[in-house]
């Protein structure tokens, strides 16, 4: 009999409704859980006053091109969804605000203090979620340099050169030199793909991979070439120029000295 009653419950008119409710609860809850883990780092404790200060700074310095509500204008792209990481990179490296429209935004001394940059980033992140400023634990340059070097050669070197010395792109754009760039900014550049750079999201290069790439670049900075001065790490062109000017120059100087007549 109980078996029969259970069977009867299963055929209860409301059983379908309950099932759908359970299914929805699972997918919805799961989605909420999942999306909150991906944006968890963005939910750092930011006070409303910081966001308000960021809003004021944004209105004064950025809104002319990006619009009062980040919607973008013909002079600048929409910033909805770019996240705190993009703001920290662009403003923190001095690229934004731009001095002028050109092939690409140039690096220059930063215009804002760290607090102001943080406020701007918090404001932009508060409008819509996006990639967050990376966690300190990924920026210690303590990963696997060999893995980072390999990933760098495969993903980065075609524009930035194997030694991170930079390289040319089309129409006057260029991939900048990476020596001396802060780990945060390297990470954020990979995460947000500023200017002409492609985005390397976490499925493409995992956070650990990004950490390894930073490790490699910082290893190169800490370990200058064992062969002596690197001549800008530009490769054979710099070497050829050097041998013609200084190598052959020195030898010709010696030749003139050897054949000079004594006075």
């Amino acid at each position, binding site marked *: 009999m109980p078996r029969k009653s259970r069977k009867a419950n299963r055929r209860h008119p409301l059983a379908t409704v309950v099932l759908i409710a359970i299914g929805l609860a699972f997918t919805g809850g799961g989605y909420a859980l999942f999306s909150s883990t991906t944006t968890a780092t963005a939910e750092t404790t930011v006070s409303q006053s910081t966001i308000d200060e960021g809003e004021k700074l944004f209105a004064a310095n950025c809104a002319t091109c990006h619009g009062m509500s980040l919607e973008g204008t013909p002079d600048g792209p929409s910033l909805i969804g770019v996240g705190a990481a993009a703001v920290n990179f662009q403003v923190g490296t001095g690229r934004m605000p731009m001095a002028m429209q050109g092939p690409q935004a140039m690096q220059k001394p930063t215009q804002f203090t760290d607090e102001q940059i943080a406020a701007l980033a918090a404001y932009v992140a508060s409008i819509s979620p996006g990639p967050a400023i990376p966690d300190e634990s990924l920026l210690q340059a303590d990963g696997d340099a060999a893995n980072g070097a390999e990933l760098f050669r495969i993903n980065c070197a075609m524009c930035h050169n194997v030694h991170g010395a930079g390289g040319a792109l089309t129409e006057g754009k260029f*991939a900048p030199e990476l020596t001396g760039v802060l780990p945060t900014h390297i990470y954020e550049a990979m995460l947000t793909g500023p200017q002409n750079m492609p985005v390397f999201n976490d499925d493409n290069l995992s956070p650990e991979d990004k950490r390894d790439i930073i490790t490699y670049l910082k290893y190169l900075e800490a370990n200058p070439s064992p062969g002596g001065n690197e001549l800008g790490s530009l490769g054979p062109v710099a070497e050829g120029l050097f041998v013609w000017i200084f190598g052959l120059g020195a030898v010709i100087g010696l030749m003139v000295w050897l054949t000079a007549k004594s006075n």
Partner: protein
Amino acid sequence: MTSTIDRTEHGSSAPADAKPAPKGGGFTGAAANYLDERTSISAVVKEFGRKIFPDHWSFMLGEVALYSFVVIVLSGTFLTFFFQASMVETHYDGAWIPLKGVEMSAAMESALHISFDVRGGLLVRQIHHWAALLFIAAIGLHMLRVFFTGAFRKPRELNWVIGFMLFVLAMAEGFTGYSLPDDLLSGNGLRIIDGLIKGIPFIGTWTSFLLFGGEFPGTAIVGRLYTLHILLLPAILVAFLALHLVFVVVHKHTQFAGPGRTEKNVIGYPILPVYAAKAGGFFFLVFGVIALMASFFTINPIWNYGPYDPSPVSAGTQPDWYIGFADGALRLIPPGWEFVWLDHTWSFNIIVPVLALLVLLGAVAAYPFFESWVTGDKREHHILDRPRNAPTRTAIGAAGVTFYAALWAAASSDLMATHFQLSIEGVIHVVQAWAVLGPFIAYFITKRVCIGLMKKDREIVLHGYESGRIVRLPGGEYIEVHEQMDEYDRWKLVDFEQYEPIMLRPNAQGKITGGMRFRARVSRWFFEDRIAPAQQRELGHGHDDTHGELEGGKGH
């Protein structure tokens, strides 16, 4: 201390004090006597020890090439003790942390081993590479010296061709060496060569597969290039080098015009003791310069490039400077020169630059024969031209240098773009215009400059140079006193050949052929703008004792 050697019969011009070796020379004398009695080497020493070389700094460029080559051989021998020319896969486990555990070929692994774990290995590697760059640079400059001073004229045309072969062999040596470490840079370079070969119609793909032992990159190329690099090419190079030097001895060295210098003598210092000491010392100076560069400046940091992998290409990937002109030629070709016709892909973006390079190199090799055809000059020339005194040749040389420079610059178009904040397309377009128009502009400017300088020389010879001294004559007239040159200086300005265009005359059959007309036209183009050297009768001074020699430049 200056000696003269007679060109035609130098054997009989030995000074009278060539007595048998004095007795009692101690151990050295005894040893020399011992050797001489068994080998008759004194005849050789006498012959070579009295060879005269004129003194001019530009005559030592070939020596620089020779000494760099010696350094290359010495350092290269050391490298062969440790280098493994194998593409067997292995994993790096040496001192350079960013490559630890990375899969690579045995060649790359051993090159890294030389760099980081062999005592002195990195220094020797860098000496080898810097010496190679200096070697080819010195060859290039030496060729320019020979070209612009006309030292390739009879009897030295064949030695020019041998020297040209040495230049090509040196480039081949350089490129094979560049490809050996099997790092990313060398692999990218080989990929371009592979593309060049595959771009040749019909035979390209077959040739590429033959060279690489299958599809690029295969597992054979490093071993094959190694055999070429350390066996075949050096053997041919040394043979040509020996021939080149034998010809220098046979022809004797050229000299610039000067008092007492004629086509029949050489004025300078003898090899023993002056040049033996100078040249020996100079070897160590060149070695020293190379060693200093290798000690303080990194060259080809293969540890940055990492092992070759066909997928990555680094920004700023260029060949070494001497292959730059080929890379530049490829970069200068506008897009869209590739099409399919008769079921074949015709890569004119490859064929055209390859042909352009072959034409350029062929023109360099053939120039002496062209010039002797144009001038119809069958005489021997041992007195060098000042470049200004051969305006058309100098202008042709300047045009060639400009064209080469354009190709060369194109190879670094990306670095010019980044370092001068230009767009790479703009750089390429400017260099394209430079490559096409530059040679003509350089030709006309150089020719006019040469002729202007010749006019100035003539003016100075005839009227002296401005002294800056203003004199007021009794009548109130002011004149600037022109001072005459002394005879020694004047000699250099008037002692050069005077050529005239070939006259169009009927041949033995009484006919004027089309070929003759063409030759006469080319000859007229070559010599139409010419300045005659000042003649003695124009000088207006009584220097009758030197009259014959001053007119000797007339060439009749």
